[in-house]
């Protein structure tokens, strides 16, 4: 079973992402939510996750800072980070990919895009 952390200050966005994950077939995934980057980071340090999905604009700690923390922490470095945000454009996407995000998607994300993006991860898990 996959454990996925969804960090977004909007409960509506978290619900929308969870629905998308369900539609793409991750019905048995355990989804843990956080409403800011700091809360997500605290949970990531305590428990093991297979995927982090994060927004960019969040109070307390934003998504870019969270991504930097994750990629700069040896125990979390390998955690795939998917950024789903409305504050993205090609310039920001390039920067986030350089920081270590494995993909950057714009809001609202569609199940088709979500599936296409997660396919390599799901295949990799299938191979393991």
């Amino acid at each position: 079973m996959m454990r996925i952390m969804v960090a977004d200050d909007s409960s509506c966005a978290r619900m929308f992402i969870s629905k998308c994950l369900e539609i793409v077939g991750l019905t048995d995934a355990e989804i843990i939510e956080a409403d800011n980057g700091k809360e997500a980071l605290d949970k990531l340090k305590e428990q093991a996750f297979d995927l982090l999905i994060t927004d960019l604009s969040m109070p307390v700690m934003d998504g870019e800072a969270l991504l930097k923390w994750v990629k700069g922490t040896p125990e979390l470095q390998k955690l795939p980070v998917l950024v789903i945000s409305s504050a993205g454009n090609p310039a920001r996407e390039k920067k986030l990919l350089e920081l270590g995000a494995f993909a950057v998607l714009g809001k609202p994300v569609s199940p088709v895009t979500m599936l296409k993006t997660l396919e390599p991860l799901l295949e990799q898990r299938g191979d393991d």
Partner: protein
Amino acid sequence: MLKDQWDEIMQAAVAGCLENMAFMEVFPAEPDAAEPENPVWDSLLVLEPTQGEFRLAMSRALLNEIAANVYGFDTAITERQTADLLAELLNTIVGRFMAGILPMEPFKLGIPERGTSGWPPLEPGAIHWHFTVEEHALSIIASGAPMLKLCQS
């Protein structure tokens, strides 16, 4: 960038947001179209690389219809959920719009805030877009001199 291009980008941002999130069709309305009645509205600041403010307003009835489409008709939707939805709609629309007018420059948005009083008067020079969604009016206003300078009339 010309005002016509801003109009097209805003139309695409609103349509892309509501069609993808709520499966609802959006139509542009005339510039003198009526404002939403007793609107609920949110405000969002653009912080970088320019400064401006966007407001999204719609009737409570339209917000409830969107909420039913997003959360499901069989769900008891709380006030917190509808407030959160309005904020998420504004955030998504503005993000798509800013990515359209500044495709190669990173931008930073604030956190949406709920309008607590009646619909405030329009600032001089503000841009006002009107849309119709399921026969309800939806309005978006962009204001703030630094951001509006990016739009040539």
